């Protein structure tokens, strides 16, 4: 690694805005040495605290140690000047200068849809987020989201469960997963998908980092799907960025009285985006042929058939299924578990069952 690369990568640890980094680099005047960096009047470009920190650490040896540490953490780093930097981000005005990542960077070349929404979705929101994520992932679409509670994590999990690909963009450093409860999920995504962040690994999340990472989510995707979000949700940022960047915005219509469906409904009513009731329309827009398996060849027992037929008319609670199917409760619960294991139905908190 030459001194230029070393110097540029060295700058990644200060969480500087992309334009600041560019400014510093242009001040160097093609002389990418640490001695030159020390002579630049940094405090005119960045805050004096940051300038002091850069100056105190600026040395070739330290830069090597820093990169060595990153390697030990299993975190890889690319910058805007590298060839591998995602092309989709380059044209953006606020494109990040550095990207830290774990996992497979080539996923960025796949067609991708961002699925975002409320951190506390209703049962309906859970159901549709899961369904869209699964159907899209099964058809070779990478699911992008932000690893947050609610819709984000549901989308990631659904994609992973069916063996699809998923990309998580974090609002914190890769070594400081927020929310911490999703550390396991993050580990799994790093193994089977891609985990991305523009922040240095030890950075913690701030109030501003989440709206900021939403621009990367919007930028990286070919379209943004909003399943459920209220009018005050952070999802608004993702929608705005997506509209700014000229990406397709999709929204799942919901009950007009449900405050959590307010944002998708507004998007549909105002014509900002397209209302979708199944993944088919999105796949068509992405020019992907729907190769979803047909459910007709399923072998169902007599009881299972009754249950599946009932659920075809919508999600139901156990009591209702019991009443309408007239099956004894022990047979019914074993039958529901069997169907769940076979991946035909899914069970949601509150004892609600629905077809996948």
């Amino acid at each position, binding site marked *: 690694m030459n001194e230029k690369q070393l110097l540029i990568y060295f700058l990644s640890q200060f969480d500087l805005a992309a334009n600041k980094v560019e400014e510093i680099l242009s001040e160097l005047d093609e002389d990418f040495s640490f001695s030159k960096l020390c002579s630049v009047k940094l405090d005119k470009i960045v805050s004096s605290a940051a300038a002091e920190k850069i100056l105190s650490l600026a040395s070739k040896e330290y830069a090597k140690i820093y990169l060595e540490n990153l390697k030990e953490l299993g975190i890889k780093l690319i910058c805007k000047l590298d060839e591998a930097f995602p092309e989709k981000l380059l044209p953006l005005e606020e494109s990040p200068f550095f990207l830290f990542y774990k996992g497979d960077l080539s996923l960025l070349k796949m067609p991708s849809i961002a699925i975002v929404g409320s951190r506390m979705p209703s049962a309906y929101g859970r159901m549709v987020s899961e369904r869209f994520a699964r159907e899209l992932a099964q058809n070779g679409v990478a699911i992008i989201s932000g690893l947050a*509670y609610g819709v984000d994590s549901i989308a990631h999990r659904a994609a992973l469960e069916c063996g699809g690909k998923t990309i998580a963009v974090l609002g914190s450093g890769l070594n400081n997963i927020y929310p911490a409860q999703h550390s396991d999920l993050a580990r799994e995504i790093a193994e089977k998908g891609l985990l991305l962040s523009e922040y240095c690994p030890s950075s913690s999340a701030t109030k501003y980092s989440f709206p900021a990472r939403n621009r990367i989510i919007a930028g990286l995707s070919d379209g943004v799907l909003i399943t459920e979000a209220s009018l005050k949700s952070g999802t608004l940022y993702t929608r705005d960025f997506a509209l700014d960047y000229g990406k397709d915005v999709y929204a799942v219509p919901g009950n007009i009285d449900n405050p959590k469906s307010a944002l998708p409904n507004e998007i549909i009513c105002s014509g900002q985006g397209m209302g979708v009731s199944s993944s088919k329309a999105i796949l068509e827009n992405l020019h992907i042929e729907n190769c979803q398996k047909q459910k007709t060849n399923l072998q169902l027992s007599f009881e299972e058939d009754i249950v599946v037929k009932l659920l075809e008319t919508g999600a139901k609670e156990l009591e209702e299924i019991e009443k309408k199917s007239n099956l004894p409760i022990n047979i019914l619960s074993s*039958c529901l578990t069997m169907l769940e*294991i076979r991946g035909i139905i899914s069970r949601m*908190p509150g004892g609600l069952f629905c077809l996948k």
Partner: protein
Amino acid sequence: MLAKVVSFGLKGVDGYKIDIETDVSNGLPHFEIVGLADTAIKESKERVRSAIKNSAFEYPIKRITVNLAPADMKKEGAVYDLGIAIAILSCNEENGIKNEKDFAYLGELSFDGTVKKIKGVMPLLISARNLGFKKFIVPEQNCQEASFISGIEVYGVKSLTQTVKFLKGEEEILPVKPCKFEDISAKQNYQLDFSHVKGQKMAKRALEIAAAGGHNLLMIGPPGSGKSMLAKCFPTILPDLTFEEALEVTKIHSIAGELDLKQGIVCTRPFRSPHHTASTVSLTGGGSNSKPGEISLAHNGVLFLDEFPEYTRHTIETLRQPLEDGVITVARSNATITYPANFTLIASMNPCPCGNYGSKDRECKCSPAQIAKYLSKLSGPIMDRIDIHIEVENVTYSQLKSQVEEESSSVIKARVDKARAIQLERFINDKIFSNSKMSAIQTKKYCNLDSEGELLLKNAFERLKLSARAHDRLLRVARTIADLEGEQNILARHIAEAISYRSLDRKYF
């Protein structure tokens, strides 16, 4: 003049012999009780003096010393009043009491000489009988309790005067007639019945399984979904108490002073529901005057902990030993006491602090972190001891008003009894009585799966992301489900049903 009579004291749930030695000698009038007596006993000199005087006996104006032997055991309560009074009276030959040594005495005295009821008669008499004592004088109010113990003669007395007359042979008192447990227990009725609970099929089925296999159970559901009602009905489907079990229960209730003295014995399975502000000691038992706690009062019955996560973490964790061993050992500075505590735990909780998480029509206002914190109160080791978790849904109005006949408790109980009989036969050489108590080795021995079941279990673990600790629990519950059906082998459908009772292992919480 020296007199010696016998009484009994309690240590834990067992009694031990106490000699009341009384010496009346010349000297300045004085009354002293020695032998590690607590305040209630120290004060008994006032009661004894007044009772003797007001029963028109002569109180010796001499130096009286009472020793309660063995002197190194701390003694509590007012049980020894009657014994002390009789000992003092028999020191005076004029009173003409000669056969005071034939009896053991239990009873508290009132100032007017009345003999008042005491706590713990049942355990005291049982221990005394086992130590070889035959004849007892107890307060009349406690007679019913004594009537269930065979092989002893118990005489109930109303007053000190009557006791003395009886001892002198001037008045005849008939020994207490033995009572038959079956006669009393047959009359017993629970006030609740499962037929009063509308809907909730899933929960009822889970409770049936819990009753059949002795499994602990956790109900998760929004407020007002009927969790407490279901739990209160649970004892009605448990097998009847056997006489031996009833004696164990009665002993504990007698010590705690919670026994219905008219009936004298507990013949329904106890149902205890301490409030979540209950202190740890009130649950486990102990304290300076060691008393059985709520979990011991629930022995052979049901301990219902409503709003489970609201109990302090420390309190919940203390349930670990009793859930495992069926006893609780309380160590205090003056004694280490073991109380039986073999209960079925029924716990209930909301899915989140506001209670609406997962609800179809009500919005949950809790943040994910709040929910995680709420659920984290239940530690792994405690969850390990709860075999069945179920979600209880809200009951709709139409279900509430439905005219459909629900199954009654007696019908369910018949099935439970049958399943229990199968288990008793299976564990005849294993020293356990129910599937829930199977050890890992026994689980391996008795819960064989066919290849279909094995495959299902494997798929379930992969697809449903069950936690590893669920494995043995699942098998035990599946064993019970198979027993309920009278099936010798655990079939795939039993496993599948058992899996549906593991909602907390799912990742969606």
